[in-house]
């Protein structure tokens, strides 16, 4: 640890981010361009530049708040922050890492329940059929979130325009795709 409190040392989570993504949070000098350009910052609990600062402190309590934040889930990876960062810090890549860690450690923010449910329903659909089955995705999402009535008007309009497949597209090598899931996202689960 440095004795100078103004020089941030790479510790804890910032170091993990560096090791897994090569993203250097210490390079951020708080210009705030990422937060100004972020289309979702007004819906976040901490805008991107504040997340960067929280990680720079190395304070375990603040790191915990980052992993439990809503920000990391409402981030759309639109890449605007990275495009505008004068230090070329790949914030979206860091966000991917933080999301994965947050899920693994069961720290995902409660407000992100629907967003995460959508991701899970999406991935389940691919795991079983190899391609996205949109009706299956919506049914699964509604079951997970109990948001039964949402988008009820959309499906008939889509069917009328030939935009929804009633029967899923099944690829031939479904076991191959299922095996990819078993070896990656499902490898630590029974």
């Amino acid at each position, binding site marked *: 640890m440095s004795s100078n409190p103004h020089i941030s040392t790479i510790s804890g989570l910032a170091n993990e981010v560096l090791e897994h993504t090569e993203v250097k949070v210490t390079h951020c000098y708080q210009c705030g361009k990422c937060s100004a350009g972020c289309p979702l910052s007004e819906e976040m609990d901490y805008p991107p530049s504040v997340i960067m600062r929280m990680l720079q402190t190395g304070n375990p309590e603040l790191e915990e708040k980052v992993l439990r934040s809503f920000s990391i889930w409402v981030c759309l*990876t639109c890449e*605007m922050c990275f495009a505008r960062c004068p230090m070329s810090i790949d914030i979206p890549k860091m966000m991917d890492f933080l999301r*994965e860690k947050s899920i693994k450690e069961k720290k995902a923010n409660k407000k992100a329940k629907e967003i995460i449910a959508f991701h899970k329903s999406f*991935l389940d659909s*691919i795991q079983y059929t190899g391609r996205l089955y949109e009706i299956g995705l919506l049914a699964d999402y509604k079951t997970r979130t109990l948001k039964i009535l949402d988008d009820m008007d959309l499906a008939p309009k889509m069917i009328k325009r030939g935009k929804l497949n009633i029967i899923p597209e099944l690829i031939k090598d479904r076991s191959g795709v299922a095996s990819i899931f078993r070896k990656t996202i499902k490898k630590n689960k029974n």
Partner: protein
Amino acid sequence: MTLGFYPGCSLKGSSREYAESVLALAKAFNIDIEEIEDWNCCGATAAHNMNKELSLALPARILSLAEKQGLHEIVVPCAACYSRLTVTKHELAKDQELTKKVISTNGLDYKGTVEVLNIIQMLDKYVTPNLEGRVVKPFDHKVACYYGCLLVRPHEILKFDREEDPQSMDELMLKAGATPIDWAFKTECCGAGLSVARTSSVGRLSGKIIRDAVDRGAEAIIVACPMCHSNLDMRRGAINSFLGEKIDIPVLYATQALGLAVGLDRRVLGLHRHFVTVTV
């Protein structure tokens, strides 16, 4: 040379008119195009939000299948799929250990030899050089070319067009006889994958895009991504309630506008499938 085609899931379902217009143009310009056999979903936002290894293994399988099929170049019309495939290729090219891991996960050989083209690159390479004398019905409208995020960012990896004021689609639309407008929301996010889980966010973000396009006199918005299209077109209810008024500017894929310009049939181009009636 045969051009490989990766439609991705949207183009087989909710955005099938995008595939229809791509294939109609390919036919009209004698492009030898062939779908990648037994392709899978690229994993989209869900995979890279939840698990890095999965988010690389799924696109790598697609690229491996293209290699196996003897394809050297593929077109990926969905900007999100294009992003996932290009990012995967980039990540694997710089890390041999990671490549070995992905090969062992997928059980398929991977060399990284397939060129990945987005829709604008494909049109610039195979359609616009042969456009002379073909524009029989110029698309004579003021258009707002909307690029969205993933077609142009991150530039470090995609190396395609400018990140915030791209020009490639504008130039394409000029060739189709349209008048592209200068506007501020070319690459602002539409709300993308939050469409279902946070529709109100999409209403706000897409609403601002629609508002600026209309205020600056656009008669149509031109897109190159099925996610952008479905948010701007199918989510018009949420958009209108955010804007507090009913705006009925149509949203067309670049391939549909170009298709109209070269005299292709509206139905063949799938214009009847849009939620917002295409009046242009």
